[in-house]
């Protein structure tokens, strides 16, 4: 369960990125956060994966106030989240296999297990035979699939996706959304920040709408 209680994020010169935001998201929910550029969508995700802390208000994830997390607890918290970004955020010094394996590698998972699970995921996303390729050689859609596989590899309880289809053509965008919907059907809470109205209307589901940092619909 995620709870935002009267959350404000105010930058210098009184720029209100978030202005008194309150909402709740239940476990296993699929939620779209939408609104025009600068509405505060990415700020909400930044706060949720504890990249930033609110100026005021409380963010509870499973009854833990994540603003109070420090050091190793932040790392541990992030291991329960899978993230997907518009610009993929892949490591271009590593091959597809190593990129997907990264979340398992950082927690010191057994190499044999990593090999088995990662190859399974590579097959699932249709990139078998490309596991040794550098992500440079992949299309935008394939890169995003690698990023989603990396986000799902640890079976996280929460997936945060920030404009995951922003750089993709319609076909690839739909493939990516389908992968996220599959994860949601399997019980993962999925929060997608997007301004792609077509996808929202096709998928349905709950929509949290923001404008200029204020919540205008949920």
């Amino acid at each position: 369960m995620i709870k935002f209680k009267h959350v404000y994020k105010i930058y210098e010169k009184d720029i209100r990125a978030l202005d008194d935001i309150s909402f709740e998201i239940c476990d296993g929910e699929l939620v779209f956060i939408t609104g025009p550029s600068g509405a505060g969508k990415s700020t909400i995700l930044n706060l949720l994966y504890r990249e930033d802390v609110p100026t005021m208000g409380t963010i509870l994830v499973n009854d833990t106030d994540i603003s109070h997390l420090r050091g190793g607890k932040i790392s541990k918290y992030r291991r329960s989240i899978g993230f997907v970004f518009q610009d993929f955020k892949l490591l271009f010094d590593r091959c597809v296999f190593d990129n997907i394996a990264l979340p398992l590698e950082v927690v010191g998972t057994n190499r044999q297990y990593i090999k088995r699970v990662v190859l399974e995921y590579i097959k699932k996303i249709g990139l078998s035979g490309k596991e040794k390729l550098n992500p440079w050689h992949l299309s935008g859609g394939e890169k995003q699939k690698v990023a989603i596989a990396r986000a799902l590899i640890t079976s996280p309880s929460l997936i945060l996706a920030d404009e995951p289809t922003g750089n993709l053509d319609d076909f690839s965008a739909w493939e990516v959304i389908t992968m996220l919907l599959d994860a949601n059907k399997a019980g993962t809470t999925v929060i997608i920040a997007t301004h792609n109205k077509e996808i929202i209307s096709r998928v349905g589901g709950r929509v949290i709408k923001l404008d200029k940092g204020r919540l205008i619909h949920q």
Partner: protein
Amino acid sequence: MRVIREVFINFKRSGFLSLISIGTIIVTITVLAGYYLISETVNHFMNELQNKVEIVVFLNDNISKDKIDNIITEIKEFPEISEVFFISKLDAYQEFAKDKEMKQILDSFEGNPFPDSIKIKLKDYTKQNIEKLTTFLNNKEGVLEVQYGGKDIEDFLNIINVIKLITAVAGVIFIIASILVVSSIINLTIYARRHDIYVFRMVGATDLYIRLPFIMEGLIHGIIGGLFGWVVIYIIIKILSLQIQKEIGINLLNFYIFRPEFFTVRFLIGCIVSGALLGFIGSLLSQGRIRGDYY
């Protein structure tokens, strides 16, 4: 394995900068090693000289035995004195007469040309001690002359001491400079990898997991720098010792620090450990950047 791979990626990303970092450590280790070798050599020679150099007080012929005893007692009161012994005219004559050539020269004199004398050895071979004692003795009644044979050696040692000081100051400057260079270069590597660091953090990597490759990178720069610093000093010593042997006839290899068992084992390890320490400190100083200054 993972750390080695990350270090390798860092080298690949900032190869030229890594070379600058290693180069700075090489220069620092060369200067420090040079300082150490000069200090050891000078200390060694100081000890040797302390045993050999002595002050000789020649006494007037007509001086009484009581007065001689009195002077000796007064000399012994100086805390800087290690040994004092009296050499009579006769003892001096007999000592010199042992040599055949000297005997011939002595025979040309009428009677014994040597005066009574007092030989003094100092505990600590410093200019202040010598001056203090010679001033005292020169003003003493019954003293003919005070000789101190070490003046030239003392001048030479003064020059060596100045060189020692300059090398020590240069050493300190180079230590600071190399730590700053290593730290700045690792900062640049961290900057070059800020995107990767961000991804590591997002997937839940701990601080140590992220920092370790950068610390290792500094350590490796230090180890390579230390090793090559030793190679440089080794080449310098080889060339110098050949030159010194040719010009002055002194074989530096007789001196323990230049012997292979010291120079190629202990000294090499010393250079590598010092280099590693410089690299380690440098990389630790750069670690603040990982906390998020760049993003």
